[in-house]
């Protein structure tokens, strides 16, 4: 029990100070029938660090890690190379083992990082302000819909068919209970998006249009017309970015008129981690800041006049407003935000642009190569680092067969849209800087074999 410093003699001395004779005396308020006499059965006792490490390592070895195979999965989570210094710095005990910065005098490290993070995110997304992070992209997306309802006092949201289906699911789950009206259809395997349909559907009951950019099929298009159409009737445009690296190469949603931009920040600084913890990005126009959910860090001065940072606008938050809060969120993704901010600082604008350029170039090479495989058709016209193929076979089966051959070859639309058989031959392929020419060849070869 290496984490418990009390010795038995300490315990005896402390019980004496308290004025009781045994530890059981401290649990007298527990109803007798609920007091457990001994350890819970069928559970093992404590183990050495070595034994635990070996147990966990044995489990880890049962997984095929992304670094061990040609790897082409995306669809909301991307494998990028994270510099070693990022992980080194986030493991500094002063960052790793700090709490929410409730005492700003001794939390300036975390607070300044959050202030820098907010600024980086706002600039990247093309917005005025950003918050100090949310759980992940999907929950940030739902919070944006709720925020649009608060701002517009309208309950109908139009979800683009290009929105990640899991994000749609999260919103639908929540809406079932809150009564929000969500319009959504599954996408079509077409190089054109549903923007025209969305524009046609916008009316005066619309709180917001939610559109993903690049979308679930990797398609990109100018959002200006959509923003204009929404604004024309007092609705908001909510843009969702699941691959922020894209914004090193393509226009920001904010610049195209989006009112709220949310996203998944995992791509920058945060590893794949089987889905979490990830990093919800949340940014908006200045005028909506007091309707924004989540923590905010702001600049101020201390009693000696020095610049300092504090959590602010907390009158929006649950610990002040209880049931009137803008959301129930308490925890953020502070450590992931730190990782994002460090990685972004290492990149800088130049590095981000280089990274985005490299991603795009490799994706174009891969798309060209894979489109040449017999039985494969490329859906996309425009894309960043992700595109959709239509195969001559069910793509879900293909991904499983490829995995057996040691190739992690994209995400099948069958996995993402199990109830849309018309999408079953679709395969979403992501290509980042971690993909080599050999990886592309290996994928193409395996796919050729699979579709033969």
């Amino acid at each position: 029990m290496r984490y418990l410093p009390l010795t038995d003699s300490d315990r005896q001395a402390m019980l004496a100070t308290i004025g009781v004779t045994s530890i059981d005396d401290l649990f007298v308020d527990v109803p007798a029938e609920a007091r457990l006499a001994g350890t819970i059965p069928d559970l093992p006792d404590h183990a050495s660090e070595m034994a635990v490490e070996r147990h966990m390592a044995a489990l880890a070895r049962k997984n095929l890690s992304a670094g061990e195979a040609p790897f082409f999965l995306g669809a909301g989570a991307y494998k990028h190379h994270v510099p070693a210094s990022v992980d080194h710095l986030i493991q500094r005990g002063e960052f790793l083992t700090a709490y929410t910065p409730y005492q700003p005098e001794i939390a300036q490290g975390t607070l300044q990082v959050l202030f820098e993070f907010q600024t980086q995110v706002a600039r990247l997304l093309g917005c005025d302000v950003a918050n100090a992070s949310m759980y992940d992209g999907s929950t940030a997306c739902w919070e944006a819909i709720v925020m649009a309802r608060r701002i517009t006092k309208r309950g109908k949201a139009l979800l683009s068919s290009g929105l990640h289906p899991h994000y749609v699911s999260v919103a639908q789950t929540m809406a079932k209970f809150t009564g929000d009206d969500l319009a959504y259809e599954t996408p079509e395997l077409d190089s054109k998006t549903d923007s025209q349909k969305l524009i046609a559907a916008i009316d005066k009951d619309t709180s917001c249009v939610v559109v993903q950019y690049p979308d679930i099929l990797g398609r990109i298009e100018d959002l200006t017309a959509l923003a204009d159409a929404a604004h024309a009737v007092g609705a908001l445009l909510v843009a969702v970015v699941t691959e922020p690296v894209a914004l090193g190469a393509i226009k920001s949603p904010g610049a195209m008129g989006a009112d709220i931009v949310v996203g998944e920040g995992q791509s920058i600084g945060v590893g794949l981690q089987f889905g979490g913890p990830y990093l919800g990005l949340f940014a908006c126009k200045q005028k909506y800041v007091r309707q924004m959910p989540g923590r905010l860090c702001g600049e101020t001065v201390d009693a000696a006049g020095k610049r300092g940072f504090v959590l602010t606008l907390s009158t929006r938050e649950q610990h002040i407003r209880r049931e009137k809060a803008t959301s129930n969120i308490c925890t953020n993704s502070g450590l992931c935000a730190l990782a994002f901010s460090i990685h972004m600082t290492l990149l800088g604008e130049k590095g981000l642009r280089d990274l985005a350029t490299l991603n795009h170039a490799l994706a174009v090479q891969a798309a060209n190569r894979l489109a040449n495989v017999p039985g494969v058709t490329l859906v996309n016209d425009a894309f960043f680092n992700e595109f959709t193929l239509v195969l001559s076979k069910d793509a879900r089966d293909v991904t499983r067969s490829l995995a057996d051959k040691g190739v992690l070859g994209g995400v099948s639309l069958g996995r993402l849209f199990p109830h849309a058989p018309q999408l079953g031959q679709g395969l979403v392929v992501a290509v980042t800087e971690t993909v080599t020419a050999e990886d592309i060849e290996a994928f193409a070869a395996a796919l050729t074999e699979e579709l033969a």
Partner: protein
Amino acid sequence: LEEKLIFEIGSTDTTGVDFAVSPAVDSRLGNLARTDAIGLPGLSEQETVRHYTRLSRQNYAIDLGLFPLGSCTMKHNPRLNEKVARMPGFADIHPLQPQSTVQGALGVINELAVWLIKLTGMHGVAMTPKAGAHGELCGLLCIRAALEARGDARQVVLVPESAHGTNPATAAFCGYKVEDIPATPDGRVDLEALKARLGPDVAAVMITNPNTCGLFERDMKVISDAVHAAGAFVYCDGANFNAIVGRVRPGDLGVDAMHINLHKTFSTPHGGGGPGSGPVVLSEALAPFGPLPYTARMEDGSIHLIEEENVGAEMPQSFGRMSAFHGQMGMFTRALAYILSHGADGLRQVAEDAVLNANYVLRSLDDVLDAPFGASGPCMHEALFSDKGLAEGFTTLDIAKGLIDEGFHPMTMYFPLVVHGAMLVEPTETESKAALDQFILALRSLAERAKAGDEALKGAPYHAPRRRLDETLAARKPVLSWIDPDLAEAAE
């Protein structure tokens, strides 16, 4: 101790990262190539390391000393857990890989789920909630789904005064009407008031046990029975599970749903405010309604992931997905390593030592600080004091800031709301007696100074990276992102 902002020291031409040269291709970006300046400064790797290393040194952290923030359970974060979470087999797998390639990851989720179920005596567990408040949402969604399944549209959630602020916020966020239940003078839920309010419109009671006054709700089983009799459900806020793990199973007390803050009881690091992780254990009545995705061990030993595709056969009543993927995997690996390190015997010892440490603090200071519920029985894992008896004009805030100068993080201030000037001290089980004695000495001296009216205390802290910060200014004129002063000036 002033560290400039990256925007003041970096430049958009500088980078700390090298990339291979991009192959020449025909662009497929359409007409969307980004042409505006983004305004993201870069630093070399050396400068980056320095910036964040120096910033880190302006933080207090559990690695530096006692962090007695009540209700937050700031215990030691073992480094083994960090090592385990970084094994490529866990850190470098994609949530949508074919299941055959992630059996170890699904195994971790399943193994942790089994521990949580057995430790709480419950029937099932929803692993996807991303934090405690997200877990509350999950629990209420299960309750709502269960009620709807029986065609029951109850609209009210009862929340005791002393609840965490997230409880009413969550209930409201789900569209419930929230009503408060008062506390008794001894710091517990007013059983009679609760019973009186129960009725066919009440969907659930959200209760925190051990409660935020640091006390065990003696009547918990009676409450649960009454709630169930009224056709409602019991949600338990599990933030304080640390006090009872291994000694009491919430399932034995009639709880229907309880979130477990893995970052509290099971020591995943707080990281300056997150990420958390809030799995929700569920009673037999609620388990069928839990969220997707879900793991299940098959007879052949393989572990299946239940998603939209196969939910019909496996879990038809699931209320659906509440986050994009499987939850906080990086926290699951850490929590499981922590649990396995302690084992059933060690976790029981955790609760005992946590409660022992808190009572030791309570009884070592109740002669100089008012303990409003000192006569209500032993405290659980946190000791509650009030500002009663301090000299005129001296507050809990002064004592908190004074602790900073003594080298400690302050306790939780002004919470729970039911106590005036509350000071909630949670030492946790990972503090040694020597550390507690030092802390007690410091807090005693501050209490004496505040009682004696030592004016110097009102200026504290003096020995921190910053003096007291002007929070009013920050809120009145919010500056939430950096503005280039040159541009700001030009704009004026």
